């Protein structure tokens, strides 16, 4: 990072802090006068907010979310998988994932990668439980010529096949570019699970509905990052707003030769990758 950039960022930070403190002061001063009215208003707002997205203080026409994955940085620690499961209350087993990580290993002389992930019995055995996620150490005595990890998730495609095939319109693309499922409207036919070429969707047997990654819509509409991005210790996972040219994902796309998974599917994914290999599908 250059000195100029650091200075700019520091200035921005101080500016933002100042503004926030000033705003808090105004609110605190006026707060007591309007406390009662504001409380009532908040309650009304809360009722409206819980009824539907986008929330009243979030305008979905002003954002266009996208996701970046730098596979060259991933160390396969799987904090993202664990954070996702916890944040989104995803079934704690080896068969239901909103996000998962694939390990690709070429041993010396291999023409094709050996791939494994969390459903692999050896990995389950290594972690000791289907609800804990680890990659085992199966290649420790082998001569590895190339190895890397590829995080996977819903690609929130521009032309999502899953949305196309839903017979009732329970799954839909939001104005800000996120593919969501209305669990109150899903009939549980699993046509969308079939249609997703990335295996990103799964069926929750207990609830009788399909499920998948939402890019933590409940977080991003509040200005937070998705849980997986938040916990990633290596900066593999990048998230941001394409409408903001200085957002992390805009910078990521601008500064890297990016790829998408299965472009031939015509789905036009909105997860952009760096560091994919020929065997990644």
């Amino acid at each position, binding site marked *: 990072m250059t000195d100029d950039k650091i200075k700019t960022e520091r200035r921005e930070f101080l500016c933002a802090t100042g503004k926030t403190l000033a705003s808090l002061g105004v609110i605190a001063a006026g707060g007591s006068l309007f406390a009662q009215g504001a409380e009532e208003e908040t309650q009304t707002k809360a009722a409206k907010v819980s009824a539907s997205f986008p929330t009243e203080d979030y305008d979905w026409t002003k954002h266009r979310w996208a996701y970046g994955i730098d596979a060259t940085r991933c160390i396969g620690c799987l904090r993202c998988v664990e954070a996702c499961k916890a944040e989104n209350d995803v079934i704690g087993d080896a*068969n*239901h994932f909103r996000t998962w990580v694939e390990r690709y290993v070429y041993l010396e002389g291999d023409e094709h990668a050996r*791939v494994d992930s969390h*459903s692999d019995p050896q990995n389950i055995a290594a972690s000791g439980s289907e609800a804990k996620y680890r990659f085992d150490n199966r290649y420790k005595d082998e001569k590895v010529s190339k190895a890397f990890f590829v995080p996977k998730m819903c690609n929130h495609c521009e032309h999502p096949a899953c949305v196309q*095939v839903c017979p009732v319109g329970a799954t839909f693309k939001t104005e800000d570019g996120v593919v969501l499922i209305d669990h109150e409207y899903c*009939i549980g036919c699993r046509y969308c699970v*079939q*249609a997703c070429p990335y295996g990103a969707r799964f069926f929750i047997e207990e609830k*009788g509905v399909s499920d998948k990654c939402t890019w933590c819509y409940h977080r991003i509409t509040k200005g937070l990052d998705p849980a997986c991005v938040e916990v990633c210790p290596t900066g593999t996972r990048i998230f941001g707003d394409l409408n903001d040219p200085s957002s992390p994902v805009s910078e990521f796309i601008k500064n890297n030769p990016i790829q998408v998974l299965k472009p031939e599917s015509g789905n036009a994914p909105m997860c952009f990758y760096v560091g994919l290999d020929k065997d990644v599908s």
Partner: protein
Amino acid sequence: MTEVAPFTGYVYPNETIIPWGVLIVLYPYLTGLVAGAFTVSSFYHVFGMQQFKPVARFALLTSLSMMLFVPTPLLLHLGHAERSYYSMITPHLTSAFAMFGFFAAFYTVILLLEVWFVFRADNVKRSLRSTGLARIFYRAVTLWSDDLSPRARAIDAKWLLILAIVGIPSAHGLHGYIGFVYGSLKARQWWESDLMPIIFLFSAIVSGIALLMVLYVLSCKLRRVLLDHACLKGLTYALWGFLMFTIMLEGLEFANLVYKGKEGIDMIMVYVQGPLFWRYFVLQFGLGALLPVMLMSIMIALNTRGRVFVFGSTISALLVLMSVLLMRWNVVIGGQEISKTGKGLLTYPMSFFGQESFMSALILLIAPFILLWVLTRLFPPWVDRSGGM
């Protein structure tokens, strides 16, 4: 609880739960029998082919019995069956499946109307002849109209022709449409094919003809009446012709898949040579399609008659019924056993008991035949001495 599918190679973790199970195998099978049985009925009711008269009305009842059960595997499969009507009140028109409810409902109405007109005269006579509850039942069925005048009969005939003509594209449209649901799914190479709707359609016709052959022979035995050989011969010829066409289409589709050799074909070849070999090449193609074609060819060439012909035709028909069921299985389950990664294969773990299991499928496969038995009791479709009026 859904069972986890064992796998080899690499499959996406979410793929280890197979989304569409045995009930979704049954669903196109039943729909195919609906379309096929309707075809047989149309041979007589639309095309006026007299040799099919003995089974024409029975074929209609068969089609109706199957049709009334077509939605059941779907409803049982849904995570929220109570929401199924959403597809009718808010159909998402980009979905290949959004119109199913409308198509199915439309065809069911056409079928019910056709059955009503076909059996109207008989029901009027029964209502006049019977007493008590039976009289009330048949009076209600005839909608309290006992007009059998030549003018009324002419109107019946006119409506029947119209309904049959509308019925043919409806029945076949419904089944071709189901083929489209699979054929249009680009995420699965095993399904994605422009030929799929046509293959579904032709396999539906052969399954319906074969079913009628088996049921007709069986019913003659049970009713202890002489079998109409001209009718069975006609059915056999129809099965023979349509079956050859179906085999050619399926062969063509497989050849296309292999010849194009798109990404993922390596795993498909491992699959067809391994787990699929027996149930695809040996059972579906060999035993279920090529053997009956050869058997029927020999019988037709040698002009076989009598009991041998009845036996040979029935065996051929049974084999075809098995082959078409296997075809549905190999398409629906087969497609899901090939991983979307192109790097692995799964094995569908069918549970024996449960909502979507061998037992639920078996019950739903048997149930239409019980309904058919009831319907043939209430509305005897036979034109020989054991039925008709």
